[in-house]
């Protein structure tokens, strides 16, 4: 479940892979891990969604789909219940994802605004 949560995985699928009936699988899982497989799977998906909200610029809808959920409405409800705020508000609480883009120096040199420029390279003044 840890690696394939992004697929349309259901508890029934996992139970089948374990060779158990769904009810028995759920019981055994809960006994072993302390929570139901459904909750575990959902939590994993929401954790991934939270990471993608912080570190990618994908839309909420795209993120919902890419963690294996289909309904944006129920995704938003579940997310808010777990994280206390909606996906959009959660994202706004952190620096934009672009902050974490390690743009290589050779790219910045051509496109970025130089900071602390103390010499006139193109005749323009120092820019901050």
């Amino acid at each position, binding site marked *: 479940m840890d690696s394939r949560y992004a697929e349309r995985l259901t508890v029934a699928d996992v139970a089948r892979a374990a060779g158990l009936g769904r009810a028995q699988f759920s019981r055994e899982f809960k006994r072993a891990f302390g929570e139901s497989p459904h909750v575990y799977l959902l939590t994993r998906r929401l954790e991934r969604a939270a990471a993608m909200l912080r570190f990618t610029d994908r839309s909420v809808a795209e993120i919902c789909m890419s963690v294996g959920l289909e309904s944006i409405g129920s995704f938003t409800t579940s997310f808010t219940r777990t994280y206390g705020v909606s996906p959009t508000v959660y994202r706004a609480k952190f620096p934009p994802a672009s902050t974490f883009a*390690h743009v290589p120096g050779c790219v910045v040199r051509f496109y970025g605004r130089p900071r602390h420029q103390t010499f006139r390279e193109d005749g323009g003044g120092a820019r901050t």
Partner: protein
Amino acid sequence: MYKIATTQLWVTDQDEALAFYTRKLGMEVRSDVTLPEMGGFRWLTVGPVGQPDIAIVLMAIPGPPVMDEATADDVRALVAKGFAGTVFLTTEDCQAEYEALSARGVEFVEKPQQQPYGIDCGFRDPSGNHLRLTQITMPGV
């Protein structure tokens, strides 16, 4: 003091590479940001589930002005040949991983072979990068 954070592979198409590394290899997206103000530069990293402290950046081969066209052609040619750098992956069960990945459509150029250090196979990504997948059986290697 420093640590290795990210290793890099050139890719010819970031969307295609992303689909390969996530859907076929099962890695997860770590970051995916496009910066229009940097000529549309897209910082795209992926990594294996359960190994959060390292990632692979799938970097688009740039054109001018960052990289001149002749150099970009050279890079594209090297990538297609699989000589533009590689990533060595390890697994607990090379044969099982080889079968699972093959079933998902990964193109293997070398089936699992016995080596002094373990069992080793190789596959390519859509750009041509050659990656190794190894099961270490020799302790301390």
